């Protein structure tokens, strides 16, 4: 792929009536249908993920909506002898920053607030440009997609940390940690962004290259 932008012509499978099986990567004859069964393994294979942009934008919209409660509602409810308090993600960041743990505060802020937000924006940008069949910055968009896809697998770290705390800190009346409704929303946001990224077919970025060219 590194040489593709320089290549004057881009031969896409679909253009020549071929597609690759989703599972076994066998090259299949597409014919004139929109879906074929792989001649090798028999799985239903589409040349592009059907209704990719629609699905991705639906997941993205849901994620964007739930992003608000995820940040406003408390993620964690800590009850101890000394205190009884609800923490949102942002209040946790503020607490860490105030107590002097600047690196940790920055990490939590980036991982839990900035990254989901940027992910939503990035996927939104990708969907929007693909829907417009824009030919601009295709390589940058492809790299952006790879970045989003890579980061996605780490996004549930916060939820993982909260669940660990909930499971471990159960000391009766001394201290208990309970997940707040924000944690649920946050987890849903992460899952929805993952689904959105998954639904988005990166090949759409490159669709129309041949059109633009020829």
């Amino acid at each position: 792929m590194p040489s593709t932008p320089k290549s004057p012509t881009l031969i896409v499978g679909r253009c020549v009536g071929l597609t690759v099986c989703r599972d076994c990567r066998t090259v299949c004859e597409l014919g004139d249908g929109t879906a074929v069964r792989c001649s090798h393994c028999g799985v239903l294979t589409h040349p592009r993920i059907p209704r990719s942009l629609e699905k991705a934008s639906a997941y993205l919209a849901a994620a964007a909506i739930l992003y608000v409660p995820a940040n406003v509602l408390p993620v964690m409810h800590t009850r101890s002898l000394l205190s009884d308090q609800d923490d949102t993600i942002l209040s946790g960041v503020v607490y860490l920053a105030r107590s002097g743990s600047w690196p940790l505060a920055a990490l939590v802020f980036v991982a839990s607030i900035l990254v989901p937000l940027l992910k939503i924006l990035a996927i939104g940008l990708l969907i929007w440009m693909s829907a417009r069949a824009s030919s601009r910055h295709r390589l940058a968009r492809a790299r952006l997609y790879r970045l989003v896809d890579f980061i996605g697998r780490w996004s549930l770290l916060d939820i993982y940390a909260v669940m660990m705390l909930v499971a471990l800190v159960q000391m009766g009346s001394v201290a208990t940690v309970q997940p707040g409704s924000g944690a649920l929303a946050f987890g849903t946001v992460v899952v929805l962004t993952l689904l959105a990224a998954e639904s988005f077919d990166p090949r759409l970025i490159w669709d129309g290259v041949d059109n633009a060219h020829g």
Partner: protein
Amino acid sequence: MDEPSQGRVPAASVIGRRLPSVIWLVPALAAAVGLWLVVHAWLQQGTEIKIRFTSAGGVEAGKTKIRYKEVDIGMVQAIAISDDRKGVLISAQLSKQASDLLEADSKFFIVRPRIAGGTVSGLSTLFSGPYIAIEPGAAHEMSESFVGLETPPVVTNDVPGHEFVLHGEDKGSLDFGSPIYYRRVEVGHVTRLALEPNGQGVEVGIFVNAPYDRFVTANSRFWHASGVDLSLDANGLNVSTQSLVSIVEGGIAFQDLSDVSPALNPAPAGSSFTLYSSRAQALQPPDSHRERYVMYFPESLRGLQIGAPVDFRGIVIGEVKSLGVEYEQGGSLLRFPVAIDVYPDRLRSHSANARFPEVSEAQSRSILSQLIVHGLRGQLRSGNLLTGQLYIAMDFFPDAPKASVDWAKAPPVVPTRPSGLTEIHDALGRIARKIDRLPLEQLSAQLSEALASLDQTLKETRKLVNHVDADVAPQATRTLTAAEHTLKAAESVLAEDAPLQQDLQRALRAAAESARSLATLADYLERHPESLIRGKAEDPR
């Protein structure tokens, strides 16, 4: 989507606009959940209230809770200093369910750890920090701004019972929450302590819990039950306390004045009572009627205190009200009037048949005049030898000089009599004066004369004795020697072996023989009287 390519005409045709994909249900669901959360939060949103305190003491914005019956109903949002800079304004967000607690007379107070005598409260706030508690009021109007209480109310509104007001001389050791005892059972608390508006005494608000509040009647007497009451009387040492708690933190006890009287109706809430300083004082029979008299004592009033009893043959019938100084005759004479209050009812209550006649003022005056004619006098007596406390005793002195009461004076003056000690003192004085009056110098001159003549007499006596010694004694010696000779001669005559003695014995023996012969003769003659005539008959043998 299916764009024509390579010039081929697509076989398929667009049938119509398809319905949006099912996938859009996901954002719809998310939107619904989000909306629900918003609506839920909006519905939960209660009213925001402002509470004014003099200081925020430990209250923190975003941390301190508002609680009702230990349930969180809100959170302090902000703390600001009031515009007049005399207090703090605490803004708090209350939950929806708490909004009907915000009656205009609801009370807010900060709960902190409190250790007061018998109770420890708010201990949990040692760790969790203080919280603001609400005690709902009873008013129908709602309010959103309140003035917080500085001290927590001891009794909450939902506890059944009645509040009463006591008026006392001083607060003693009472404090908020000090217990109220009825027959040593704790039945309530002190809820309020304040000075009377005029500063003359204290006003104590008490709350008596429900089953017991009916024991508070118009006849009830309240007294300070603080500390230990030690009394030493004819029955021995008497220690009286209510409970250990009341020793430490004070308390109030109450009891009906007379247990035998039929129970009265419970006093209405808010009734006022007098708070006495001791049980004895509280349970005194009511002194409805009192008479003031003045007494002038001819002696020092040291040891006589205001409040000292006036005792009539052992029955306390009144007390000393004041001690004063009076000028008379333009300041040339000082008198010390002792004003006393006498409660004639006390005599009545002590009378055995309880039928002591109710008398009019004129009658009581005539009775008193009569008593004084019979010798009733006031006298200072020592009530306590250790402390020298005096009391006024009313007693009869039939030999007292005549006196009477001048009823025209107000208050009337009751005649007095010097006390026993003063009388002894006076008698000693009289004796001393008499001794003083004796003509001691004259007496001593006469005595020395007498002694001189006695000396003379003795000298003459000695001369006489010397004379006797020189003249009479030798003659006497001689006489005695002669007497001794005589006695010796007599002794030699009377001795056993003296010839005279032997002759005498012999003569006596002959006389005895003669007598025996005579007796034989007489005997013979008695048996043989005829022998006198015939002569002695021959012995037959």
